[in-house]
């Protein structure tokens, strides 16, 4: 598991280089062949027994912020990159750009709020980052328009087998993919670490175009609303119930025969799994399954509570089930029909 290292790296969409460099160095250590394509996807090839061309995809990028303006007093305005809920921005520590300049996003004091304002989220255009400078000039020496911003949130193991980190969506998938590549299985597959998923699966599309897979598995961190006050049928996925299989979401109607096969394999190997019981959200499968003449795709995900926030939570046990399931699925697929 490479989750601690991977989640503590910065990789807002379009600025994945820290994650890419880490993955490249791991692939060198493993001794796995790889190339980097024109958009920055890392495409690794695990050579082995082959029946069809299999593509596994996990995206390197995370949601975050981008610097859009520096005001006359040196405060920094920003825009979201990917799906950032304005409600999570209040009172946060952030790091800006390659030099990781520390900053904070504050909020007006509660003492100065009207009763109506209390508890309400502040629209992004009213928020700003404070890096402790006193002038525009001072800020401009450290920060530029276009610098990306990530949340400062360390990897923590807590409770009974849970982890908390930022960017579990989708460093979890990247970590699973590195685990699978480290195993040196006698199973042929392409492990693709994609860029720009959160801004429209740009990387996955071109990677799939280049590879022309027969079969793709998307490795994701996915929505989990396993919280008090939520009915079980609205939870989407549950923490601790195993790998999540997608049936349909906003980007893909998954090939039902392939989903059933995955289900059967999970049963056969005694691997915990669950169905993702919502059609909202999308992932790289949307781009991959309709590239060129199309391909079969499934998505196997790790349930992440508070996804897209600095305090995303997942279960180590679920993670292990995701690794075991994908390993079993690719092995079975390369055995031949």
């Amino acid at each position, binding site marked *: 598991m490479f989750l601690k290292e991977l989640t503590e790296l910065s990789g807002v969409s379009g600025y994945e280089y820290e994650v890419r460099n880490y993955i490249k160095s791991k692939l060198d250590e493993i001794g796995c062949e790889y190339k980097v394509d024109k958009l920055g996807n890392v495409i690794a090839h695990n050579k082995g027994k082959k029946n069809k061309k299999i593509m596994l995809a996990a995206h390197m990028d995370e949601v975050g912020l981008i610097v859009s303006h520096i005001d006359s007093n040196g405060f920094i305005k920003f825009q979201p990159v990917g799906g950032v809920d304005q*409600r999570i921005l209040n009172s946060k520590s952030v790091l800006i750009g390659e030099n990781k300049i520390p900053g904070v996003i*504050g909020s*007006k004091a509660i003492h100065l*709020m009207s009763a109506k304002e209390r508890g309400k989220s502040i629209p992004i255009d009213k928020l700003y980052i404070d890096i*402790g400078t006193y002038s525009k000039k*001072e800020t401009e020496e*450290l920060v530029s328009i276009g610098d990306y911003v990530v949340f400062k949130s360390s990897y923590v193991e807590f409770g009974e087998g849970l982890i908390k980190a930022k960017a579990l969506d989708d460093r979890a998938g990247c970590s699973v993919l590195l685990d699978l590549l480290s195993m040196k299985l006698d199973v042929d597959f392409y492990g693709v670490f994609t860029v720009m998923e959160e801004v429209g699966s740009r990387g996955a599309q071109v990677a799939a175009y280049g590879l022309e897979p027969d079969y793709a598995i998307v490795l994701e961190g996915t929505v989990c*609303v396993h919280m*008090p006050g939520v009915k079980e049928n609205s939870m989407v996925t549950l923490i601790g119930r195993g790998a999540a299989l997608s049936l349909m979401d906003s980007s893909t109607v998954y090939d039902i025969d392939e989903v059933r096969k995955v289900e059967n394999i999970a049963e056969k190997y005694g691997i915990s799994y669950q169905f993702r019981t919502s059609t909202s959200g999308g992932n790289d499968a949307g781009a991959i399954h309709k590239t060129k003449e199309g391909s079969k795709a499934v998505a196997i995900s790790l349930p992440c509570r508070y*996804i897209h926030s600095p305090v995303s939570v997942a279960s180590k046990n679920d993670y292990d089930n995701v690794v075991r399931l994908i390993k079993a699925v690719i092995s079975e697929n390369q055995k031949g029909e």
Partner: protein
Amino acid sequence: MLKEFLFEACSNQFVSGFEYINGYMLKKYFEPYTDSSEKDKIGSYIFKQNGTSDKKIMLAAHIDEIGLMVTKILEDGFLSFTSVGGINPASLVAQDVIIYGKEKIFGVIGIKPPHVIPKNERSKALKIKDLYIDTGYSKEKLENLVSIGDVATIKRDPVSLQGSVISSKALDDKACVAVMLETAKELNKISHKSNIFYAATAQEETGCRGSSAASYKISPDIGIVLDVGFGMTPDMPPETACLGNGPVIAFGGRLNLKLTKKFIEVCHTYNYSIQCEAIPSDTGTDAESVQINREGVPCILLSIPLRYMHTSVETIDVKDVETTGRAIARFINELDNSDWGELLCF
């Protein structure tokens, strides 16, 4: 040293009513400069520097901070909680927390992700009862670790921003406890005739209770009350004080005008930057209780400008803390050389 003290004090918990747990830390920092210390019945810590006269000057800065208190242990390791002191529920979303149970328990406060939330719900006001701490334990295990009534704080590592600006939870009012530390250090070097009492007061955030008992006990001739004030940000009115420009002294209906003017005069004489603000009535600080203690105590109120008050990213300039601490030492020195009868008469 000030930054070291602030980082250490802000990393621990001093939730109102639970200040006693980490009081040892104050002793560690104050004892080298003071002659005696005690913890009073409410939980305030009082450090004393002995003087040569019978005059008593009390400095007061509250040691307590806002926090959370566990109200219920739920299925799947979730906790319901209430706030201790004034907290905007919106500032609690997506935070790490530490629950001070049998041991320190890590948890997070999260919300449903945007994927499953209708747009109109996102702009709805959050209430504390809508939020939960997620501990990752089963209910059975959690019940052995956490009890109803345990307190929690947001877990935020203090961070150094540019220059001497820092950001952390609980700088309200550790910033001013640090001011007292600086004054104690200074007065340890330059002589003073008055007896100086440094009161790190308890329970300010829940209603200025600690300073009331502490000032009764000390019965000071003069009170110097220290708290944080609103610092300038883009959403604040133009009269707001700026970080880095020194302490803010308050003029107002409840404060002693002669002493206030004297403090400004001392700042001008010794070249300490100073900012002024008008607080017509209730100051919302320990000055409220200190002033009306026993037969009355003439008070001045100084504040350190702070941004994002009562959030976990409160931001100050440590330079202001240092300036304020030193200016107070000079002020006391000047008072010692003044005619108190004249100074305090009307």
